[in-house]
């Protein structure tokens, strides 16, 4: 099965819940909003289906592809996470015992790819690392959440982890694994950071928090919440840091991504991405991508179109189709090939943006 990119848009399925690229952007993994994961191989502008992984029982919510070790991680509503290793041209799954009794919503590799964190509906985060002696993945829980954890992200230092939850709070914890991690010289939240579910930092959002991400240098933490705002916390000078909130006039953002240390791309229910930039210390929304000039219909033809609509659809008002590339909420943003950003949405399309 082969598809090509047309005008920056790749139509892959009826609906896409999440996607991920491998290290050299030659392969794309995504879930078509069901219990399978499709892996496509990229050759220029064409994408060809290579594998279909069907180990999960329910919707796969998140895919994480480790760029160096080429290990694939998937988690799903069926409370499981699988680690996939490519052997002899096929992907072999290993079940990870997360010890959660509710759905897993997001999974992320740590920067050193030696451990990963899973956000779950069991109001906890499962941090898993590989134990050599038993040849399996061991999980430890970070509790202290009052509601489902929707998103999780590792700090570039490999020690701290930030979590976003539907209880309206973003929390920072330590995911320090004894015997695997070296004690950090410095973290913005203190030098002594043992793994004990202690909340190192807590930030309030006015609504459900959908996504949380650390900046590439680890000095800033950004999160988007359901009140259509993007909040950036600057912890360069240490915790708790300076909090800045950018209010948007659009529908809520579902996911955000740091393009670089002073630029964030956010996208969500408005079906188009927005760029937020740090100009002289203040964050603001600077650009709306996917700006098509001109509305769906010209003024000259509006009288004609009214009667046409009355005849065809029995309605007076103009039938508006969305003039954005994405036709439904954008749920996942990743760094894509050719230095572009790729966004996937519930309309089944993957779109590439030049940022």
């Amino acid at each position, binding site marked *: 099965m082969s598809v090509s990119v047309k005008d920056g848009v790749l139509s892959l399925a009826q609906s896409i819940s999440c996607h991920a690229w491998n290290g050299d952007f030659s392969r794309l993994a995504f879930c078509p909003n069901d219990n399978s994961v499709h892996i496509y191989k990229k050759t220029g502008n064409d994408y060809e289906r290579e594998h279909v992984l069907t180990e999960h029982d329910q919707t796969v919510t998140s895919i994480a592809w480790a760029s160096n070790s080429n290990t694939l991680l998937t988690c799903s*509503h*069926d409370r499981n996470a699988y680690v996939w290793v490519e052997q002899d041209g096929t992907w072999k799954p290993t079940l990870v015992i997360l010890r959660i009794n509710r759905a897993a919503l997001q999974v992320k590799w740590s920067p050193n790819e030696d451990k990963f964190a899973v956000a779950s509906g069991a109001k906890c985060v499962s941090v898993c690392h590989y134990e050599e002696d038993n040849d399996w993945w061991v999980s430890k829980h970070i509790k202290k959440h009052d509601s489902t954890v929707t998103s999780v992200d590792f700090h570039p230092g490999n020690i701290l982890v930030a979590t976003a939850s539907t209880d309206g709070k973003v929390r920072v914890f330590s995911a320090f694994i004894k015997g695997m991690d070296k004690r950090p010289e410095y973290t913005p939240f203190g030098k002594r950071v043992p793994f004990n579910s202690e909340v190192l930092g807590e930030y309030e959002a006015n609504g459900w928090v959908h996504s949380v991400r650390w900046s590439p240098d680890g000095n800033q933490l950004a999160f988007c919440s359901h009140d259509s705002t993007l909040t950036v916390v600057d912890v360069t000078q240490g915790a708790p840091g300076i909090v800045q909130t950018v209010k948007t006039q659009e529908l809520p953002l579902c996911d955000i991504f740091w393009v670089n240390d002073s630029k964030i791309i956010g996208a969500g229910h408005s079906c188009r991405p927005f760029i937020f930039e740090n100009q002289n210390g203040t964050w603001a929304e600077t650009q709306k991508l996917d700006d098509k000039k001109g509305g769906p219909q010209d003024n000259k033809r509006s009288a004609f179109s009214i009667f046409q609509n009355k005849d065809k659809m029995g309605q007076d008002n103009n039938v508006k189709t969305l003039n954005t590339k994405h036709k439904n909420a954008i749920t996942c943003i990743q760094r894509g090939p050719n230095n572009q950003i790729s966004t996937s949405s519930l309309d089944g399309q993957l779109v590439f943006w030049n940022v």
Partner: protein
Amino acid sequence: MANQPYLDCIRATLTASVCLQNFPSQIIERHNKPEVEAQTSAELLCAPVTISRNDKQMIHIETSVNSVRISVKVKQSDDTDRILCKKFMNFLNQRAEDFIILRRKPIEGYDISFLVTNFHTEQFYKHKLVDFVIQFMEDIDKEISAMKLAVNARARIVAVEYLKTFQV
């Protein structure tokens, strides 16, 4: 129409409410329920909003993380209206499955209710769902007025014919 600010307000509120996401139940494992119907976790529910034009016409919007419940109270000024509305709503409710987003029973105090879940927003355009609800509200008012006129006209004709027999 004088109704326009009322409908614009409803459109704006609904556009914001219909931003839903797939949310697995945090109470029962492997389940996925509309949280606005389950009403189990307070943090997943938004404060319900009532937009009313007057005390006879209002719309009640209850939002949650993965579902929205929209209840409409239709204008009914006299007994004929009430009977017509009741019969009409009954007719629609019995065919709720074909309507997809209709709820089989209206919420207490309202005449008709819709339940929109994240699965509906994945299938349909959000702005078309909102358009549908608003168009529906307008159409119901028009239909009931038309039916009332028809009933009254018929009643008059029947009465005239009947009383002709008593003409001297």
